């Protein structure tokens, strides 16, 4: 099991489109992927759950990933977060 902390670096926080990217990664993983934010833990395979956390720009979130491909999943998420969900680039 990996506890993986990441910072939300885009200017808009996790709205529908970034949440969609997270769901894409979480759903294609064999591992379970949960997201912990301000005391709430949700399944990262549900886009509505992610959106309802109202994650603000600059926030730190923690993924709890458990399963055979946990490292790869964590790496994919890191790449997604570091690229600001491919949003801010013009």
């Amino acid at each position, binding site marked *: 099991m990996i506890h993986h902390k990441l910072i939300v670096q885009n200017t808009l926080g996790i*709205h*529908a489109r970034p949440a969609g990217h997270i769901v894409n990664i979480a759903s294609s993983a064999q591992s379970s992927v949960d997201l912990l934010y301000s005391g709430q833990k949700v399944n990262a395979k549900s*886009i*509505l759950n992610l959106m309802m956390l109202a994650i603000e720009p600059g926030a730190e979130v923690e993924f709890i990933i458990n399963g055979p491909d946990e490292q790869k999943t964590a790496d994919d998420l890191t790449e997604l977060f570091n690229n600001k969900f491919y949003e801010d680039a013009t």
Partner: protein
Amino acid sequence: MPPKQETNQRKMFIGQAASPGYVIAKTKLIVRQKVVVSQYKISREGTASQIDFFRKGIMQVKKEISNLRDITLQAVSKKDSEIFDSHLMILQDPLLIDGVISLIRDERWNAGYAFHLKMQSLIENFENSDGILKERAQDLKDIYNRTLLCLNSSESDFALQEEIEEGGAVLTGFSIGPNMLMNFDKGKILGLAIDSGSVTSHVSILARSMQIPAVMGLGSLSESIKSNDLLILDGTNGIVIVNPDENDINKYKKQIEVFQNQKLELFTMRDLEPITMDGKYIRLNANIERYEEASEITSFGASGVGLYRSEFLYFGRNALPTRKEQAEAYSKVVNQLDPLPVTIRTLDAGGDKMLALVNAEVESNPFMGWRSIRLCLDRKDIFRTQMKALIEAGSRGNLKIMFPMISSIGELEKAKEIYEECSAELRAEGLSITKVELGAMIEIPSAVIIIEEIAKRVDFLSIGTNDLIQFTLAVDRSNGKIASLYEPHHPAVLRSIKLVVEAAHKEGIPVSVCGEMASDPLSTLLLVGLGVDELSMSSWCIMECKKIIRSVNYDEARAISAEVLGFADASSINNFLKKKYSQKIKSLGISSFITAQDFTTSDRALIKIDDEIQRIGS
């Protein structure tokens, strides 16, 4: 990026080119009234079918959104298309789907209301928090509106925000129903820019027949503009520019001038005969769907009605139309046009034109389902009412009856039997009636294969190319992913048409083609060369078609068509036709044709709009 709410910011949107023409005008928004979601408890036995109805509604909405995504992906950018991926994910999120299903199963709410309850609670969750979450409720609201339209739709949910002023306006909104469109006075609506729908939507066909430029499937245009914003609507290329700059306006003013001149020039064709240079007469008829249109068709130079879609009498009502009501509607058309022929197609409901009054069930494959003549032969009460109205109107002028979706001799015989019975009953009532010509529509491959048997039993044949192509090629053209496979010039389609023509001429009866194919310039020439006697199309296409027919030699067209019949695939046929005819079509200055091929998403991607598109979707 979220839209910056600057006032009067120039924005460009693209959608589907649904009806050609250009207009620069103020817009009026169509807004959703407070929607009344019908709410009722269902029985235990009813839960399965409500859950099924809900799932199919969701499937339908997902299909619409995927189409939007594909168009955006190809014509705009991957980034802009991603918002639709998110919407698709929301529509398969168990939090939503299982939530609604449990409201249906456990609380026994009907599907529409269960969906409404669940979505409202989600939207409230978003809206009650402060800050960014509040804005994000918009995505959910989009989905709510789109889906509710499927599960709980009623045209009266929509109305104009403000009155249209003198001079008219372009209507913009999430959706518009055919009835709403028809209720406006002529000249008030200058164009349509609609978020949902497609080229083949009923409203699009109507817009083309009313000669109103229209762009459909614009995504979220209506959320980014307000009533009285100025916009340019380009129905020929599927482009909408909100708050255009001076450049845009000048460019389009020129376009409008060219378009108007072409139109004026075309009107010189109106009173000329559709005869080839070597003297072959091709009858050009109009397709109509409202009796009010009848008065207009001769002003476009039509020589009759080749397809009157009678189902329009049945839509948007609380009760089926009575015999008297139908007889009056049909008589009006026949009287007005006498002695010109009027071919009326019997009720063709089902497929994409569901009649809630008759069949509320959602079918998994409606195009191959309980529709058209099948429905009529099962619901003889409905069929006989219409038949009697048709026969009654037939005594007032030149009326012909056409049976759609014939797939076997049995169906044809049954339909003819009902005609005979109804005639006898009317005679017994003391009415003096005349014999009406009966025809079969050929739109199913099985009918093509047994065409010789069919031709022996009818007075005329009419090829419905839209369905014939769809069924011959097994391509649902409303599916954006495979729309490019919808190929009217596929050799299988052309050889089918040839078989039908040969069988008809052997029996000495005429063949007509009705369907969008008839009005595509290359197809027109191809069909004429194949020996088709009549073409039926939207009335505004007729003058262009005349111009084309008057510019060719029948012998030459026959030779070209005969040659392409031997070709193995559509692309070599298209290339050959272009080589033979392009120069001619170009020299005629014809540009405003809508061709079936123009509508494929792959073609949409080719539209160059100077990298000016700023955003579509979110």
